[in-house]
Structure formats: C-alpha cells, structure tokens
C-alpha cells in the first residue's frame, strides 16, 4: 500500500518542479554570485588580484590613479578575493541573474578608479585609498579614516606612530 502514501503525498505537495522562470527561484543564503566592490573601503593592497586564479581582477596604473577592474565573464566565483580582502571591500552577493546577450558582455565588468591625491602633510602624490584598520586599537573613527586617506604612506606611518597603535 506504499503507492497510496506516495499518491497522497504528491497530491498534497504538488509537482516537484520549481516555478522558475515563471516565478521566483530559491537561492541559498551564501550563494556565491555577482561580485560587489566598495571603493571607499579598498586599501589598494592588490591581494585580490594576486589570488584571482582566472585573472578576472586587474589593477592598472593610469595617470589619474589605480584602476580596479573585474570582469564577471572570466570570474569563476570561487570567493578567494572576498576571503583575502583585509577590509571587506570586495564581497559576493547572491545575485545569479547574469545571462546576457553577447553585445553586452563588456558591460559585465566593475570599473573603479582609486585616484591620486597630493598628501595633505608633505604634498607628495599618493593613492586616495582607505587605511587598513585591521588590528588597530582603538579602531579608526570615520573622520580618522578620511584624514588617513589623504596622506602618503610615509606620512601615514608617522601619523599612526603619533596616534599610538598597539
């Protein structure tokens, strides 16, 4: 009489086919999909470029600054960039709606510019990147991050020493 049980279960539960594409699809919480890049948190350490196996992440030096580029059509969504990013500037969303017409394939990229600024202390050319707040006690405030962002690496070191970093 097993078939009766199966029959009743099927009647209650309905078909096992997912409704997508005629309805929403279930997505796991930690699904590794489209990458998001937060320019304001990036320290320009280039760790993500180093660990990116297919070479989807690239940093280019331009006269205006350091250009960050990530192409989703090469990315294998392994998540190493997110794992190794010291400041959580890069993370993967659960968005998997990435099928597109070939004409739009180069729009599937993230392009951001970490621009050059002149150091507010010594006037040297420096990248306007966020300082790495990992292990800094007490942690940086938002204003401190903004001040540090406009310093060259040398002046940043001096400022950190004067501040007293454990």
């Amino acid at each position, binding site marked *: 009489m097993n078939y009766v049980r199966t029959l009743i279960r099927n009647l209650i539960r309905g078909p096992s*086919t997912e409704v997508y594409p005629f309805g929403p699809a279930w997505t796991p919480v930690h699904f590794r999909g489209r990458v998001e890049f937060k320019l304001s948190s990036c320290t320009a350490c280039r760790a993500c470029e180093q660990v990116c196996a297919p070479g989807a992440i690239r940093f280019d030096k331009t006269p205006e600054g350091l250009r960050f580029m990530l192409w989703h059509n090469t*990315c294998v969504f392994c998540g190493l960039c997110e794992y190794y990013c010291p400041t959580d500037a890069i993370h993967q969303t659960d968005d998997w709606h990435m*099928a*597109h017409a070939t004409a739009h394939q180069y729009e*599937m990229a993230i392009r951001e510019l970490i621009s050059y600024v002149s150091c507010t202390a010594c006037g040297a050319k420096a990248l306007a990147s966020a300082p790495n707040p990992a292990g800094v006690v007490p942690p940086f405030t938002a204003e401190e991050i903004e001040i540090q962002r406009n310093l060259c690496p040398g002046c940043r070191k001096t400022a950190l020493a004067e501040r007293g970093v454990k």
Partner: protein
Amino acid sequence: MTTLLQTLSNQARNMAARSPWIYRINAGSCNGCDVECATTALIPRYDVERLGCQYCGSPRHADIVLITGPLTARVKDAVMRVYAEVPEPKVTVAVGVCPISGGIFRDGYAVHAPIDQHLPVDVNIPGCPPRPQAIIEGIAQAIAIWRERL
C-alpha cells in the same frame, strides 16, 4: 489562389507553437557545465521542457546550440564541423565562463577561447558552472532571439 495559400501559410506560421530543439556541444569542457545542462533538461525539478525545448541527438535537428568548454585545440575542428551542420536560423548560447573568455584556462596554449572569435555567439551565461536556473534564464533569452530570426 496563391494569395489564399499564402495567407493560410502565414496563419499556420503564426499558429505554430514552434518548439526550439536544443543541441549541446562540448568544446573541451571539464563536464561541470555539461552536468548542469543535463540537470536542467532531465530532472523534473528544473524541467526546461516547460519552455518547449527538447534535447536532440543530431545537430541537423537543432535550433539552439549550447556550447560548453574553452574550445581546446584538439576538439576545435570537430566543433566547427558539427556547428556548421546546424541549420539556420540557429541561436548559439555559451554556457559557463570558458567559452566566453577562457575562464580558468584563459590565455592557455591549448585553448582557442574566446569562442566568439570562431563562431557567432548570441547569449552568454557566466558561471563556473552556472546554476540550472541561470541556464534556463539564458535559454529563455535565446528563445526570444530565435523567434525574432524566424
């Protein structure tokens, strides 16, 4: 008489549901995308046949071609020959990042990726591999393109 026949044939053309048949070419894929393609087609959970699609065994019956893999040097000739056998109008779908850019094999000495240098690709489905729902999404876009071309 001819106009009547033409009207009838036009009407029949509009009435026909026109189910595109799908053919899958493995251009040196690691089989990850092929497994996802098979899952999309064969498992009732994803069931691509709701869109009117059916996998066919011969390229001569196909309307939509799914290509997986980075087009390795070894398999290139065979892929080009099989692709040429698919009748027009056909829509080509690149499944996974390998045919689109080479993915993990990008700039490798034994691959001829990207595949759009060798044959016209219409829809890209990035992912390594793309999940079955993403493949269904890409096939839906391919069907829309295919209906325009008819």
